[in-house]
């Protein structure tokens, strides 16, 4: 919460206004980290304007899934060898039967790890009160938030106003970001 930073939030009725505003801001040298977009739906145009790469969630999915496979085999093999009891004339380590356990744990661990990856990467749950937010963002409006140092705030405001926002709000503390 640095005092030298200020924020502006603009709500747009149209998707392309928001996309153009982000494009203009980035062209004017505002860093990606200082811009935040809000949308009621996932919009590829917005993500494209923000310049996103691959989401690291996929690594969580892979690592979780592999951990699950290993756990499934380890659990069934080691517990069978711990007390070697022949059941139904089958081998102590009955791999085909244990594949089912390994498969189910692959899915379970993979899915849960994906969710953990999502929470870490999106920083959810967001426990701070929604200071700079427009309830219309979940209905139909698109938002662009910029935080800038005091000397550049004027330029940011001009760029946002050029796209005819439905509403503009000042955030003197620059706290909404993050």
């Amino acid at each position, binding site marked *: 919460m640095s005092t030298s930073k200020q924020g502006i939030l603009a709500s747009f009725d*149209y*998707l*392309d*206004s928001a996309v153009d505003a982000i494009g203009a801001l980035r062209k004017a040298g505002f860093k990606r980290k200082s811009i*935040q*977009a*809000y*949308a*009621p*739906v*996932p*919009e*590829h145009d*917005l*993500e494209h304007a*923000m310049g*996103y790469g691959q*989401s690291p*969630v*996929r690594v969580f*999915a892979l690592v979780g899934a592999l951990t699950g496979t290993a756990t499934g085999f380890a*659990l*069934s093999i080691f*517990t*069978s060898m*711990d*007390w070697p009891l022949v*059941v*139904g004339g089958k081998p102590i380590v*009955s791999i085909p*039967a244990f594949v*089912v*356990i390994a*498969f*189910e*744990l692959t*899915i*379970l661990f*993979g*899915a*849960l790890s*994906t*969710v953990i*990856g*999502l929470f870490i*990467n*999106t920083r*959810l*749950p*967001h*426990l*701070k009160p*929604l200071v700079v*937010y427009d*309830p*219309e*963002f*979940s*209905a*139909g409006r698109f938002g662009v938030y910029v935080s800038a140092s005091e000397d550049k705030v004027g330029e940011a405001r001009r760029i946002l106003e050029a796209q005819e926002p439905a509403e503009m709000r000042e955030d003197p503390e620059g706290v909404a970001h993050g």
Partner: protein
Amino acid sequence: MATAVNEKERGALTHPDVESFGQVNRDILKILSRPGKGWWALFTVAVLGVILFFTSWIYQILTGIGVSGLMSPVGWGVYITTFVFWVGIAHSGTLISAILFLFRAPWRQSIYRAAEAMTVFAVMTAGLFPLIHLGRVWHGYWLIPYPNSRFLWPNFRSPLLWDVFAVTTYFTVSAVFFYLGTIPDVAAARDQARGWRKKLYQVVALGWRGTDREWHHFGKAYIFLAAFATPLVLSVHSVVSWDFAMSIVPGWHATIFAPYFVAGAIFSGVAMVITLTVPLRKIFGLEAYLTVKHFDAMAKLILLTSLIVLYAYMTEFFMAWYSGEEIERAMFWNRLFGDYWWATWTMLVCNGLVPIMLWFKRVRHSISALFVISLFINIGMWFERFVIIVTSLSHEYEPFAWGIYRPSMVEMGIMVGSFGWFFFWFLLFTRLLPPVAIAELKEVLPPPLRGARKEGAA
């Protein structure tokens, strides 16, 4: 998501009467605040069912499993039938929410939330039946894999233990998938709600704001969860079928069981989605969202799976004859013309004959006809599991070990009551969470663009 042009066409195709993003929020969120008489009437019936369910179960716990009709040679009866029935119902919800998501089917958006809720509640219902069937329910924790007092672990070669893993994984993953999908919609509800609902939605929405970062990772996580859920759904009913197919009981020991059960599960589940969405559409006035096109697509899915199921029935009978196995032949003859002929013929008529009507477009486009057909399929699929389980067990190898099983009143009470338990949760869901996916529905609508730009972009 492809280009704006493509999106617009798809939206116009499935939801011609939905004008704007804001309208979606207004139409869907008003469901939460206005129950109406129809909802209360259904909810009362559901509560009565819950009471019936728990009185019957508590009576069985206090008296003992002897109050059921289960006796040698038929040790699996209505409880296991109903367990398989509810697990099967669950499957189409995951099919619609995950598999059709990966295939980008444009008609899934408005029904998938209800279908997914159905999955979660159906697995919740199904999961109770192994516990009911245990008799001594206080030993239920023995299902959990841990070493017992003599350090003996459970037998991982047993299909029943696979089932524990499959069903618990299925419940966990589908509940997580369902919850994740609702987060943006609960945020939409939070932004308009007041009073206790606002407080509740604030917690449930986890402070979702719809920022670029949230959507970016959310989209990826959603794809991965769908990709995990897809093989999971195929595996769960396969594992359930192996509970039977891994044994040597005549009529059970068949390699066709896994695909046959999965097709049957999707068949019964889509029918249940129709059974649920027809009243939902009527009570809450969702005609603009659940259009005839949606029901047409679901009817086609039922038609396809009914053909697979019918083919599996015929294969079973053919293989029994072609195998030359006397016991197997006698069992299938007994199925058609023995003590349980009425159950077998109910199954064949409901699952094989009635869906033939869906070949006709007029039937597929008539909501009331589809509703009636879906009820027939629900009944038929319950009887299918009853036929598989009971006719086989009652007519095994030794003639002096044959027997007749008659469900007791307690078993019927628990079975009927389980519908009340399921509908109790489903009806609560329609009032507490947006029953139609708000954010995902908007994805197939044209995004709002500036008037001057509209022509150029579209």
